């Protein structure tokens, strides 16, 4: 009887924290589609996504938890890799709007390059990357100053001033993992220092 009471108590305790239980629950979608560099991932990342299985797993996960930015980003990821940009974008947009820093960076990258026929929009990139950089994503902290220095946001309102951009790069220097990332940060620092925006 004591064991039964304890079990019921535990069940109620979990039920009392549905958000934590849902938010941190590792799904098949996480196992199959997580990005290795996503700071919000809850499973080891995968470089080679199994498209069919990943899509099915993420569609199921999102149907059960549609407000979860991590799952929405991952569904967007697998759909994009499947070449289905029009279905992918609403999920990436949702996740980016919900401050998922990886989704913000990736959506910016897609928009910057105009992948899969998506219309290039430098000012949308500027907004996505500055938000991602402010949340701490390494790739955005390097890419944003690099684009500013190369004049790629010239037609936009540049939201970060020189001090903030310095801060992005200083933080990126501490985050850099390995030889290439360290050299890249040093390279972008040099380029940014020599740019008009830094002066």
């Amino acid at each position, binding site marked *: 009887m004591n064991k039964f009471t304890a079990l019921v108590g535990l069940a109620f305790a979990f039920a009392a924290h549905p958000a934590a239980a849902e938010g941190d629950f590792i799904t098949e979608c996480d196992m199959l589609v997580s990005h290795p560099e996503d700071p919000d991932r809850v499973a080891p990342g995968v470089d080679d996504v199994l498209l069919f299985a990943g899509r099915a797993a993420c569609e199921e996960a999102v149907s059960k938890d549609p407000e979860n930015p991590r799952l929405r980003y991952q569904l967007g990821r697998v759909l994009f890799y499947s070449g289905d940009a029009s279905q992918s974008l609403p999920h990436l947009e949702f996740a980016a709007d919900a401050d998922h820093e990886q989704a913000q960076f990736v959506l910016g*990258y897609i928009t910057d390059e105009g992948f899969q026929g998506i219309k290039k929009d430098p000012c949308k990139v500027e907004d996505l990357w500055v938000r991602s950089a402010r949340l701490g994503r390494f790739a955005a902290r*390097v890419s944003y100053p690099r684009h500013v220095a190369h004049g790629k946001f010239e037609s936009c309102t540049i939201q970060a001033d020189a001090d903030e951009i310095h801060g992005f790069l200083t933080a990126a220097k501490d985050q850099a993992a390995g030889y290439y990332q360290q*050299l*890249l940060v040093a390279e972008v620092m040099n380029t940014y220092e020599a740019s008009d925006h830094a002066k």
Partner: protein
Amino acid sequence: MRYLIALICCVLAAGAVAQTPDPEAVTDCDRLASHGSDPERVAPGVSQSGMRKAAAIAACLADTEMQPENRRLRYLLGRAYFYSGRPDDAMPHLIFAAEAGHRQAQFVLGYIYDEGLQGVEQDRCKTEALWLRSARQGRFAALVSYPHHVVRGQFDDCELGASADEMERFLGTAKTMASDYYRRMWTADVTEDFAAYRERTGQ
């Protein structure tokens, strides 16, 4: 009797073959100390933080005793020593491997001289020579780092072994090898800097 003699000859020949290790065979040293970006590695890479250093040194010592001329194993022993903070033990092995043409050892040794790591005397002209040999053998890091240092004047005191045209070819090769977002960006930025350098210096 003839059969017996033939059999003895076969056994002796087999014994002689068995005592000559296959230089491409995967050893414990490879398993414990390989670098993920070494083009000559024969086992999955192990990061610096993930390396069991004492075990790696023991395995690589045993393997290099069997194969003292194997440049890959000598590089790995040097790597394990260097990560263990033993540069005096590491350097002879790294130098041997680099001189024997191991492109990863050439790049790494050049990097150690470039930075003056662990008290090794900084010598950028040694770096220049090592990275040039590594780049000519197609090591990605050297293909980009060499022109990067030229543009920044870090080889100004040395006699440059590569012409501007050769460095441009290095960067062209690196562009085809850049395997991720960061390497592509770094290669693109150094290429841009190098083009400006050529224009500035008229080379």
